[in-house]
């Protein structure tokens, strides 16, 4: 099966700034992403959990973005301003995709 190199960027970020982040992605020309719900977590700002929360103040989401390797730097610079002010974590993994023309 013919596969192609790509980068998988996974951004765990506060739900409340999700649209700020995806706007930054779209501005950078990155229009493909998937958003996963996050149940809870723990970090330097302590532990939290989604259950029972009504306010949108707590709660995070995970934005997954698969892109061509050469677009990685652009993407990271685009999202950094959002990440800088808000808590969250980014990881980048090498991956292989089918149908590279889509990315």
């Amino acid at each position, binding site marked *: 099966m013919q596969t192609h190199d790509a980068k998988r960027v996974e951004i765990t970020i*506060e739900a409340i*700034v999700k649209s700020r982040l995806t706007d930054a992605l779209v501005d950078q020309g990155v229009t493909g992403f998937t958003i996963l719900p996050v149940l809870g977590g723990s970090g330097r700002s*302590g532990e939290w*959990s989604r*259950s*029972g*929360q*009504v*306010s949108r103040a707590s709660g995070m989401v995970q934005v997954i973005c698969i892109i061509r390797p050469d677009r990685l730097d652009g993407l990271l610079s685009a999202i950094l301003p959002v990440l800088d*002010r808000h808590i969250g974590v980014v990881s980048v993994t090498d991956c292989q995709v089918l149908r590279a023309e889509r990315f």
Partner: protein
Amino acid sequence: MENLLSLAADNLVSPIILSFVLGLTAALARSDLTIPEAIAKAMSIYLLFAIGFKGGVSVAAHGIDATLGLSLIAGVILSALLPLVAFGLLRVLTNLDHVNAGAVAAHYGSISIVTFVAGTSVLESQGLMYEGYMVAVAAAMEAPAILSALWLISRGGGARRMDSDLWREIALNGSIVLLVGSFAIGWITGEDGLAEISSFVVAPFKGVLCLFLLDMGIVAGRGLRAGRGLITMGLLGFGVLMPLIGAGAGLVAALLLGLSTGGAVLLMVLGASASYIAVPAAMRVAVPEANPSIYLTLSLGVTFPFNLALGLPIYVSVARAVTGG
């Protein structure tokens, strides 16, 4: 005084308060009792829809009197000024930096609709009437506090980002839209509309409120456990003192407006209560440096139970004494 004590005792044995206590106890004892997030949101949507709708119907029934507009303006002013008082008090009582103090202050200028709802329950059980448009006043008081707190914070350095996202977050957040929208629906459809859906918005209301307070108790208890280290004596003092100040300001405004006894109680409750839905979300967007554990624990873990258990009977007694109602 005796009256106050018996009112307080009555208040404490209502299913509503006890449900909160149950949730709080369960969370402090580390039980795994939880309410799914979707259900908590659904209950809050139901409560906002019902309270807004009933407020609108009541305005349709009793007509608008001249004080409606004045009450809205009074609410906006209260909401804008209380954060200044809160900020000053915090700087005296605690050693929060100006960013965190500003974020906390925003919460106390704004309002908690659940405390408002609990207040209307107490009024109903006491047979006290109130102006239906107080719901609209509640809605009007959600946002101004945010703006004045952001102004306080920006005065201390570091310009706040007031971009369009933040404006939308503040002005069009779901709870305001739902409250104002259902108020409008109630106003337009009036008693006929109420007749159609009263077995949905009236009959099960208090029961849903019980389950919602159960959830709030759980969330507050978890917050208190996680925020143990954060709540100093100074913060605790603030969390109890500030609602009394807010209630006092509400009472003065109510007297100036000439509201009914019930209306005065509700304006006191609005002044006394601290937001825990709309303002925390706005603060995460506008002031992410502020620590959410502080303002959430204070608003939900200290001031909310204080108002629910002790504040409400105090406000009712004082309003009755002062207005002679």
